[in-house]
Each structure stands twice: as C-alpha cells, then as structure tokens.
C-alpha cells in the first residue's frame, strides 16, 4: 500500500515538475588534467553540446567526426562542443592518443565514473548528447547516432544560434 501511494505521488510530482531533463553543473578534468566547469563554458558560449562517448563505441566516433566539422563551422558564432569520455578503466589510457591523432580541437573531458552521464539521465546507450542553451535550458537530447542525424543536429544548433 505504501509503495502504491508512493508511486502515485511520485508520478504526480513528475507530471507537474518534469521539464524534459535538467541542467547539471559539473567540473571535470580535460585530457591534459585542467579542470573545466560547465557553468563557465555555458557563460562563454551561445549554445553548448555535451556528447558522451567511448573509444570502443563505433557510432560515437562517427558522431564525433561529424560534430568536429560542425564545431569548426559554428564555433565563431558561439557554438561549443564538449565530448565527455565515458571509457572505463580498461580503455581510458587510449583517449588522449585517439583525440590528438585525429586532430580534434574541441574540449574533451573525462567522466570515467559516469557521474555526469547519470546527471544527464544517460542509460546504457551511447552516444548520448544534450544540447544546452545559454539560459542553461535543455534544448534537446539525442540517444544513438545514425548517418544523417548530423543534419537534424545542425538545424537545432542553427536555430539556437538564431541563424536562418
């Protein structure tokens, strides 16, 4: 009975409060050990995309390649792409060499205990990305990546940046 009551109250609370995911502030080290705070990244940008990935995840690498192009295209207009690495202890040693060899210039942060991933409601699937506005509101959430998804993401970035 207690559980049923609890569930009903819980569902009610969420129906009234839920805002389709929530902003979660964090400070994480980048691949060189420098601490990066999301609040500071958001303050300096117009729109931020957080993307959770791992070196063993093939669609993650495809998304990253496509997003690297979009980052170069829109960074001067205030678009920031932040790749959060979710490799576990097994493969985390390869992250820096992979990123550097690919010549990526966007920010890569280490979220190896997946705490930030959990903070943004990430489940077992990757890639998982979240688009955040300057007002710290969640514009959209994407689970998985298929060829062609970059067009939809680009449209969302353009809308958020006010580009027609």
């Amino acid at each position, binding site marked *: 009975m207690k559980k049923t009551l609890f569930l009903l109250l819980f569902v009610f609370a969420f129906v009234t409060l839920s805002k389709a995911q929530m902003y979660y502030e964090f400070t994480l080290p980048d691949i060189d050990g420098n601490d990066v*705070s999301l609040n500071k990244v958001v303050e300096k940008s117009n729109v931020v995309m957080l993307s959770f990935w791992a070196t063993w995840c093939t669609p993650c690498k495809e998304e990253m390649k496509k997003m690297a192009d979009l980052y170069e295209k829109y960074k001067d207009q205030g678009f920031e792409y932040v790749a959060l690495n979710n490799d576990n202890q097994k493969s985390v*040693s390869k992250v820096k060499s992979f990123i550097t060899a690919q010549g990526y210039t966007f920010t890569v942060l280490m979220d190896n205990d997946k705490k930030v991933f959990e903070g943004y409601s990430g489940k077992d699937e990757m890639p998982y990305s979240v688009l955040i506005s300057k007002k710290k509101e969640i514009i959209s959430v994407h689970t998985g990546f298929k060829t062609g998804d970059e067009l939809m993401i680009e449209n969302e970035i353009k809308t958020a940046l006010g580009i027609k």
Partner: protein
Amino acid sequence: MKKFLFVVIFFSFTIAANAQLNLNVKAALNNLLRYGSGSEIVLGNSNPKEYFENVTDARLSVNDIVFGMRYEIDQPIEYGVNFKGIKKRYVEYNNNNVGIDFRAGDFWQIVGRGLSLNTFEDRGQFYDTGIDGVKFAYKKTFGDKKPVKVKGMFLGGRVLFNDYLVPTRVETYDIRSGNFEISPIKNLNFGGNYVYSQGSVPNAFDTTAVKSYIPEGYGTLTIGNFQMFASYAHKQSNTTPNNSYPTPLTAKGDGFYSSISYSMPKIGFTLDYKNYRFDLTAPDYRGNDRPTRMLPFQNPPTAVKEHASTLLSRYPHVVDFNDEVGGQFDVVYAPSDKVTFNLNLASASRHYNYKNIGTGALIVYNRIERSSSYMPSFSDEFSPWYETYVEGEWYASEKLYAKVSYDYQNSVIYDNLNPAASEKQKISTIPSELRYTFIKNYTLKVNFENQFVYNSSKTTKKDFLNELISLSVSKSPDLSATVSYEWTTSDEEPTGKKAWLLGEVSYKLNTTNSVTVSYGTERGGIRCTNGICRYVRPFEGLRLTINSKF
C-alpha cells in the same frame, strides 16, 4: 521504515521547493521496458522463456540537492533474480563552488584505475557492485599562479554481490574507504587509497567471514606529449575458521598497472602493462567462490582491446585478475581526416607453471619459480594468450564509408595433469563494414564477418568456419531495420543449429523515446562487458524494448 522516511523527506522537499518560488526545481524521468517471449536452449533442451523488466529512474533536483530513485519490476527477469520495488535511492548534495560532494544511499565509485575500488553496474550482465552507504568528498585549490589541488574522499557502505554465474549466491561486503589526492604542480597528480572490508562469502556448504585490507598508491604525470599513469595495490585477506576452511587463511597478493601514451597530430601510441597477482594459487584452488580471491568491488584495467565485432566478441580473452601478467600496445594513425588506421598487439599469461608432485591419486602441486614472471610467457605451461588486430577506416565521401579489420588470436588453456589434453585455440577473424547514403537521410549498411577457428578440444571437426552477414537500412533520424544471418560449419553447437536468422526494427518516436522489436534466432555465446564475461543462452523468439525519457 527507511523507505518511508526517504519518501517523507523527498516530498517535504518537493512541497517546500514549490512553496518558495526562488528555488530551482527540476525533474527527470527515464523508463526502460524490456519484454521477451520465446524459447532458449539449456543443455541442449529447448525451454520456454519469457521475461518482463521495467526500470524507472527518476531524479528531482532542488538547487544543489538531487533526490533519485529507481523503481524496478523484474517479473520474471531475463537473467538473475526476480525483483519488484525500489531498487536504488539516494540523496546528493553537490556544490562545485565550495568543492563538496555528498551522497547518501546507492552509488558507484572508482578510485584511480580501480585496483582497490571500482564498483559499477551492468544490467545486461546481471552485474552490480553498487554501494549502499554514504560518500563525502571535498576538493580545494590553493593559490592562483601555481595552484595546488587537493582532494579527499571517505565512503562507507555495503556491497551485495550476486554471483553472475550462480545468481542466488550472494556475497556481502561492508567496506570503508579513504582516499587522498594532491596535484602539487599542473602536470603531476598522485594519491593514495585505503579500503577495509568485512565480507561474507558463501560456498555450497557454508559461509566464510573474511577481512581484507587494500592499500593503493597511484600517480599521473604529463610531460608535453607524454602521459604516464602507474598504480600499485596490495591486498591481504584473513578468514575466520569454519568447516570449509578449518585453518585460518591469510592470503597476500598485489596488482600493478601502468600506461604510457605518446600522442601528436596524426599519430598516437599507448602501452599498457598489467601484473595482477591478487591471489596466486595452484590449479586445483581456482574456484570462483574462494574467499581469498580478488574482491568483486575491485576491477583493474583488463589491458586488452574491446571489440565491437559480433564474432570477435564471442571469443573474448577472460582476464584472471588473480594471476595474469601482460599488456597491450595500441597505435592510432590518422594520415588524413578521411583515413584512420589502428594497430593493437596484446599478450597475457599466467605467472608460473605448476607441477604435480603427488603420488597415485593424491595431487600435490608444486610451483616452479620463474625469474622473468614480470613478463608474459608464450609457453603452453603458462596458458598464454596473444592477439594481433589491425583496422583501416575510410570516409571516402559524405556518402560512403568503409572499414575492414583483421584479428588473430592464439590461446592455450593448459591442463597441468594431462598436458596433451590442453585446449589450444587459433582464431582468425575478418570483420568489414560498408555504409552508403543513397538518398538524403537513407543509409544502407552491410556488415560481413568471416571467422576461421581451430579448437583442439572439439571432438569431431577441429577446424570450422563462422560467418555473419548483416544488412541494415536506416532513415535518419527515426527508423532503422536490420536483418542478420549467421551460420557455422561447427558440428558441436550447443543448440544443434547451423544457422541463425534475426530481424530487428527500431523506431524513434522522437529524440527521447524509442521502440525496438526483434524476432528470430540468436546464437548466444560468451558476452563480455567491463571485464565481466558470462555465457548468454541462445534465444529464439520475440524481444521488445521501449526506452523513454521525460
């Protein structure tokens, strides 16, 4: 009572938050529903199989405080033990400005690379070493020009570990851990961790109480393009006498892991070395329920490549953290933004050979010392394993992508009593992928995997072939359909089958809600994730997955 108190606190905050408009209140809800109906093969017999799992994760944040819970219905569960109720719940306070991170309830934690503490959950493997307890962490930076960063953490709680091979066997560990890290200069970071645990480890007859002490030291150094990490942990376990172990056991073991990477534009190298000897034992004492083995809440790096290929993942190298030495060398070379190559060389073996010096039916193993036990051996007596993997990736154009790989693995599972009966296996695998976008948003993907296997333990046909072809059409962003066909020339498949056909359709209702339906036959086999491997039973029937986020 605890649950009730949690509910009261939860809603008190909710109401208080709504009453005071200056509070920032947000909520998020995820739901995962999994249903399967069909049959699975167990020991050659086809048995009906049905499962229904619904996992709801909810979080409510009020300024810097987050309340979370997971409500789970697993009736029946696909793997593991049925459950219905609140499985996880926590309250968290996180303030980056003052550097405080507090959490009470359920959580997971990794320290360093996990030699002394690395708890995680993998539902697919029915693996969860989550801690139910309290964690408090504090970090502070001193100075502006040459900042010195310090970080401390204390945690305590209980780990309930369901054996993934025998799900009803549950080990209990009450753990305490203290951690300290300091970064005196920008490129240097080192720390220490100490874990104390009181465990109850059941076997078929009774339960053994075991106390463990695990100190660990680790450090990271970055100099220009070089990055180095090293970690060492020591473990001592003391058991209390019982019928299974009438004499108290004191087992000492340790583990060392290090990695060096060098990276520059276009090319990166990584060298991993592992030397795990948390519980070196003779071959007749390697049972999974022995209390002196490496504990479930430890999980060091495996230092082997993680594969995405279906056929390759069927033959994983199962790392023995109690007795394994080896490493891997990985190179990423990207000569242009369209082409990437990857080379991975890995090897591992046991540290020592053991010889039976008993007479007649009495087996007494004697360890043969080896001065070079810090390096892997390729001799059969050490159960060696090695792998060579090369991969080429080509983004030919906006529309065309191709990838081809070659993998060779060689392994021996040595039989100390009858070396001629040792299992020797050689596997060559060629996975390939071709992707072509034929109309805007419509992409065709073909995966073809070819595998040649030699296994000395097979009785009829020692050489056989496995092949997989998978055809997938996707329409970005919402639809994808895949048909996979796999066949083998092996005569000793547990299912007795020679071919498997599976169809799968996945549809995204929007960016946060998706439905996946599959129907057909699945071959099953060993599945490994996060260093944990288990046997997945072959399945035939319907599977449905609905994933929602609100």
